[in-house]
């Protein structure tokens, strides 16, 4: 057994590898507080932007800001910046699968057609024009 001495390292710097980075890395308190302040600023920003009418861009801006916050939490509070790369891979693969889930589902639900009773024809709700697909 090697000696396991707690070791002070500057946050963001390479953790000592001899004793396993995830176990030994010790962040600076001021750094954690700075991350928290950044998260608060992002929250205020997203609330402020929500009252500005940007149309479809509102959703994009909200998702981008939320993802910035999520990145801060994952990298620094959850220590993926200094922790195991393999753990990071598990997270990234999960998020890719969420992307597949969204893409295939919305590609389906966004193209479904409704039956126009008056014309007895399938029409796309988006365009109002005759559209293929759906059950007979």
């Amino acid at each position, binding site marked *: *057994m090697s000696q396991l001495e707690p070791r002070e390292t500057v946050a963001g710097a390479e953790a000592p590898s001899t004793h396993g980075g995830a176990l030994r890395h010790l962040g600076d308190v001021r750094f954690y507080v700075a991350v928290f302040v950044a998260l608060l600023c992002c929250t205020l920003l997203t609330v402020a932007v929500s009252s500005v009418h940007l149309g479809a861009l509102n959703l994009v801006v909200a998702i981008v800001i939320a993802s910035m916050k999520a990145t801060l*939490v994952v990298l620094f*509070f959850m220590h993926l910046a200094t922790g195991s790369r393999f*753990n990071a891979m598990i997270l990234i693969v999960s998020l890719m699968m969420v992307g597949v889930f969204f893409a295939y589902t919305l590609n389906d639900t*966004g193209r479904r057609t409704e039956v126009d009773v008056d014309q007895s024809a399938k029409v796309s709700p988006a365009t109002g024009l005759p559209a293929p697909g759906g059950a007979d």
Partner: protein
Amino acid sequence: MATDSSSRRPTFLADHFDTAEQQADAAKLGMWVFLGQEILFFAGLFVAYGVFRSWHPDVFSAASHALSKPMGTANTVVLLFSSLTAALAVRAAQRGARHQTTALLLVTIACALAFLVVKYFEYQHKFHTGLLPGQWFGVPRTFPGGAVMQRGEAAPALPAGAGAFFSLYFVMTGVHALHIIVGIGVLTWILIRNLRGQFSAEFFTPVDNVALYWHLVDLVWIYLFPLLYLID
């Protein structure tokens, strides 16, 4: 069978691990696999949200205004702060500072309870004004601790389809609140183990893993807040 090498094994180190690092890395890997599962679990709800919002964007925008932005923002700040204290609790445990770990875990649990109190008042308002899921939408209901309002009172006029928005609102925030309640449970369990002196600078993996779970609960809320409360 106390050989020279086994007598120097730390008590926290399980037989099937060679070193403390290996044990900590294995535990953390297991936790990340669980967190990956949690993300995929919540993805089902987020995809349902995406489908219904893409079908009825105007209904979602109108219904979103019935939610309290100040309450949602307050809860966001409370959860972010609890994530900070959870991260600092892990840091304190890493240093073997037991009393500091105890204090930081207590603050984290207090924040979790504060989150639920705010959520209670939000749900109460929804029940009293009939902002309810699906077929129950528009009919005010009783809820512990307050008077029922008349239909339309305090609640804005909303399209009939808004029930779909509130179905998603209650399921998503409800499942999230369930995670908060489970979080309070596991944080309390870790607090008790810490008070019993089971953690040290050499062994603090359970504190680390429970904090990881708590950060995930925070992550889900980071997306729920703008998607439910801040639509246009």
